[in-house]
């Protein structure tokens, strides 16, 4: 078991920055991002034996973390709606500046301020490179909705960055 754990730690070390970037953009705060990272790697550990090697490990892990982030968003949306909790965008911008020194902080902040559905499709499409059809499948919505969310997001981003 220790050998397997050692191998898994090597996987973690190689991929954790990529995973943290996705997690941070979804969660918009450090603590939430850390939760997603942990959740994603626990899920990966759990399902690693079933990884069949047909895709690259990084692609598979990427899919695991996106699922973990989307699941968390669904759970948090319900809880946050009940508690009426606001996201602290200043704090998020600070964390982006620290964790991604090369990031365009104004752009990241504008994306973080998008309405929920639009924000998720922007992250998946522009930052993670998913085609609209796959985003639709993952989010359980129709492709046309993804495209209209992207269109709306682009308009809002242009206004915010003007």
């Amino acid at each position, binding site marked *: 078991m220790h050998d397997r*754990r050692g191998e*898994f*730690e090597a996987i*973690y*070390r190689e991929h*954790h*920055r*990529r995973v*943290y*970037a996705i997690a*941070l953009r979804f969660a918009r705060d*450090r603590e939430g*991002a*850390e*939760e997603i*990272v*942990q*959740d994603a*790697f*626990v*899920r990966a*550990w*759990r399902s690693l034996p079933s990884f069949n090697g047909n895709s690259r490990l990084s692609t598979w892990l990427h899919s695991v973390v996106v699922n973990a982030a989307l699941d968390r968003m669904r*759970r948090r949306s319900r*809880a946050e709606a*009940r*508690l009426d909790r606001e996201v602290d965008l200043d704090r998020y911008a600070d*964390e*982006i500046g*620290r*964790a*991604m020194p*090369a*990031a*365009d902080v104004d*752009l*990241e902040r504008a994306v973080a301020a998008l309405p929920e559905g639009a924000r998720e499709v*922007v992250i998946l499409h*522009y*930052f993670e490179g998913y085609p609209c059809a796959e985003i639709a499948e993952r989010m359980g919505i129709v492709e046309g909705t993804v495209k209209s969310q992207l269109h709306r997001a*682009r308009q809002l*981003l*242009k206004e915010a*960055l*003007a």
Partner: protein
Amino acid sequence: MSDRDRDLEARLARAPSEAEPARDLWPDVARAIAAERAIEAQPRRLAPRLPLQIAAALALFAGGILVGQRWGEPTHAETPPPAPAAPLAAAAEVQRAGSAYVSALSRLDESAGPLEREQGVDAALSTLQGAAWELVRLRPDDPQAGRILYTVSEARTDGEAPTVRF
């Protein structure tokens, strides 16, 4: 496509794909995996009975508080055990916090409206989950602690298989 569109697309395309966490998260991941293995080793129930499980978890939590109470506040009839002061103070602190928790929950049922009650239950489960985590952390090999954590975590995820967090 306008210049503004092109500019936006270019800025989005340049966004970095990696970010450095503020701390090493591997120890948390490793602990979560270890706890996951401990939980997996527990016998799984056949049908979900969340209210009963929550009640059982609360009873166990309250039981722990009572034990802490006995440690922290010996009766006049008892001779205080010759233990160092620090552990007694720790038990008393746990007992005080636990009593406040239980009292707040009982007040919730008496005075809160439906929305407040739901928020209160959400907060109560969150606190209970935090307490269960601490139990697992303190006693990583205790199957009862693992079972409490699993039950409370499941309650917080609306019956979905819970994920272990640190």
